[in-house]
C-alpha cells in the first residue's frame, strides 16, 4: 500500500475511490460510452459487466488516461485522471486488456522495471511468486503463454501494493487454476484495503468476487446491481431433514437456517453462497431434490438487460 492516498486525506470515505462523472467517449462515427456515472467506494470490489463492445474497456481506458473523454471526467481518490495523471498512477495498479510485454525482457526484468519506476524495494521475485511465475522468472516474456502473460501483467499491477487495482478482463484466456489464482489475489488486495475495479463478461467470476456490478450495454450504464444483498435459499432433500444440520450454520455467509415444512430455508449474505450450502448438505449425506433461490440473480439481470438492448430489427 502506498499510503499516499491515505496520508493526504484523499481516501476519506466520503470521496469515492473511483468515480466516473458523466463520461462520454466518442470515436469517429460512434459513441463508445455515453454519460457513464459510477462511484466506487474505498475497499469495494466493483465489476463492470457487459457484452463485447459494451464500452467496458473504453471506460477503463478513460479512467487510466489511455483515452481522453469527449465529455465528463474520471477520478481516482479525487484526482482527475486527465489532469493529474501522475497522482492517479501512483495509487493505481492496472492490467489493461491488451497488455503486451516486451518480447526480449524476462519476467523478472519486467518486474525490476516496474519496481524501479514505482521506487518499490520489494524483490521482484516476490511478485512473480504471487502469480505463480517464479519458475519462469528468467524466461523471455515473448515465450510466455497467454495465461502467463496475463499473470505477468497482474504481477506488474500489484507492485507497490496499490490502493486501487484496475483490471480489464483479468480472466480472459486463463485456465481454471490461473483464474482461481487471480480471484485469490483480488480477494487478498481487498483484504489489505485496496479498491478493485475489474471488467469481465464472465458472470461466474463477477458474481463470486464483486460487491457491486455495473452493467454496460451499448455504451450506457443500464443497471447497478448489489451482490451482497441477502439471498434466501429453499432446499428440499432426500431423506427430508428433521433438524437443521450444524454444518450449515457454520458455513461462511450463512446468517440463519430454519426448517419450514421439511424444507431447509437458509439466509445467506450473498447468492453465491448457495454452492457452499448445497455441497455441505451433500457431504452430510442428503440428496438435494430441489433448490429455489429468491431474489433476482445477476445472470437474470444481465440477460434481461442484454436482451432488452438487442434491437429486434437487427436480429
Amino acid at each position, binding site marked *: 500500500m502506498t499510503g499516499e492516498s491515505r496520508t493526504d486525506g484523499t481516501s476519506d470515505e466520503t470521496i469515492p475511490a473511483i468515480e466516473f462523472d458523466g463520461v462520454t467517449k466518442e470515436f469517429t462515427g460512434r459513441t463508445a460510452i455515453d454519460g457513464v456515472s459510477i462511484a466506487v467506494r474505498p475497499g469495494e470490489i466493483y465489476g463492470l459487466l457487459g457484452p463485447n463492445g459494451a464500452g467496458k474497456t473504453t471506460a477503463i*481506458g478513460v479512467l487510466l488516461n489511455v*483515452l481522453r473523454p469527449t465529455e465528463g471526467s474520471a477520478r481516482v481518490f479525487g484526482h482527475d485522471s486527465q489532469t493529474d495523471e501522475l497522482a492517479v*498512477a501512483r495509487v493505481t495498479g492496472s492490467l*489493461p486488456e491488451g*497488455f503486451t*510485454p516486451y518480447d*526480449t*525482457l524476462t519476467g523478472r*526484468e519486467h518486474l525490476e522495471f516496474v519496481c524501479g519506476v514505482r521506487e518499490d524495494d520489494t524483490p521482484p521475485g516476490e511478485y512473480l511468486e504471487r502469480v505463480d511465475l517464479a519458475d519462469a522468472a528468467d524466461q523471455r516474456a515473448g515465450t510466455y503463454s497467454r495465461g502467463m502473460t496475463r499473470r505477468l501483467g497482474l504481477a506488474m499491477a500489484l507492485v507497490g501494493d496499490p490502493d486501487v487495482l484496475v483490471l480489464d478482463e483479468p480472466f480472459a484466456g486463463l485456465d481454471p487454476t490461473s483464474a482461481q489464482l487471480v480471484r485469490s489475489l483480488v480477494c487478498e488486495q481487498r483484504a489489505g484495503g485496496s479498491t478493485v475495479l475489474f471488467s469481465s463478461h464472465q458472470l461466474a467470476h463477477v458474481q463470486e468476487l464483486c460487491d457491486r456490478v455495473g452493467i454496460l450495454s451499448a455504451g450506457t450504464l443500464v443497471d447497478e446491481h448489489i451482490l451482497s444483498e441477502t439471498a434466501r435459499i429453499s432446499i428440499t432433500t432426500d431423506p427430508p431433514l428433521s433438524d437443521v444440520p450444524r454444518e450449515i450454520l457454520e458455513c461462511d455467509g450463512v446468517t440463519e437456517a430454519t426448517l419450514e415444512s421439511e424444507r431447509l430455508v437458509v439466509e445467506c449474505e450473498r447468492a453465491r453462497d448457495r454452492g457452499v450450502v448445497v455441497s455441505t448438505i451433500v457431504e452430510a449425506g442428503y440428496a438435494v431434490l430441489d433448490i429455489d433461490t429468491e431474489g433476482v440473480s445477476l445472470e437474470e439481470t444481465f440477460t434481461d438487460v442484454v436482451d432488452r438492448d438487442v434491437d429486434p430489427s437487427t436480429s
Partner: protein
Amino acid sequence: MTDADRIRPGVVRTIVVTELRRFKRPWVPLALLVWILVSVWRTVYGAETDGTPEVISSTAYVVRVNPETSDAMYAVFEYLSVWWHVNSIHLLVPLVGLVLGYELIVTERERGRLQTSFLLPARRSTMIVGWYIARGVVLAVVLTVPLVVGWVLITSRFETGDPVAYAIFTVATVGYGLAWLSIGVAVSAAAQSARQAATVVAVLYCYQLVPIHHLIVSGDPLYQLQLLDPRHAYLTVATAPYEHLFPRLHTNVAHDVYNWESTRWRTTFTSEEIPAYLSWPVGVAILLSWIVLPLVYAARNVADTELVSQ
C-alpha cells in the same frame, strides 16, 4: 510542480537500463560488425593521396595546401565524402539514427506496449527521454567503436595524427547520429501507423542523399536555408579542428570523376575568412537544435495522444 512530480534520476536510470536490455538482439552485434568493416575499408583503402598539390581526395573540404598534412587528416575525411558515395558515414549515419528512432513510439503503440510503460507513475516525457538516452547509447556505441578501430588503423599507417581533432570528429559524428535519432523519434510520434512512419523515414533518407554542401559553398540562392540542414552543421563541426588548413568558402573549378568510387576536386578559394554562419559554434547550435527540438515535439505530441485507437 511538487517534489513528487520532479524527474527522479533513479526512475530515469531504470527506464534507460530497461530499454538497453531490450537491445539484447542478434542484429545489434551484426550492425556493429558492419560498421567496423566500413570503417576498416575507408581507413585502409580510402586514405590515398595522389601527390598532386591543390587536389583533394574525396571531399571538397580537404585541401592539400600543406604537404605535411598528407597524413591522418586525409584518413579522417575519407569518412566524409560529400558526394554521392556509399562509403561515406556522412550518408550512413542518418540511416542508423532513423532506424533506431522511427519505431520507438508508433510501433509500440500498435503493439499495445505503450500502455505497459505509460500507466506507471512517470511522465510520458520522462519515459521518452529515458528511451532516447538508451537508444542514444546504442547509437553511440555502434558509431564510436568502428571509429576507434579506424583510429588505430590510421595511426598505424600515418606518422602524424591529432587525437583531439579525431575525438572532435567522433563526437560530432555521434551528435549527428543523435540528431537523426531525434528526427526518427519525432516521425514516430507523429505517424498514425508504422507503415506511415517507415514511408516518411524513407523519404527523409532519400532527401539526405541529395548533396547539398556544394550548393551551399557555391552560393546557391537557397544556401541560407540549407545552412540549417543537419548535414551541413555536422560537416562544419567535424572539420572545425582543421580550420587553419582550409576555408569554408571555395568554388569548384574542376570536377573530374575518374570512376564511380574515386572523385577528385580542385578548388580555389573565394575567401580566406571563415564567415560566421559557417563557424563551428553555429554548427554546434544547429546540431543541438536538431537533437532537442524533435525530441520536445515528440514528448509533447505523445503527452496529448491517446494510446489506443478504436
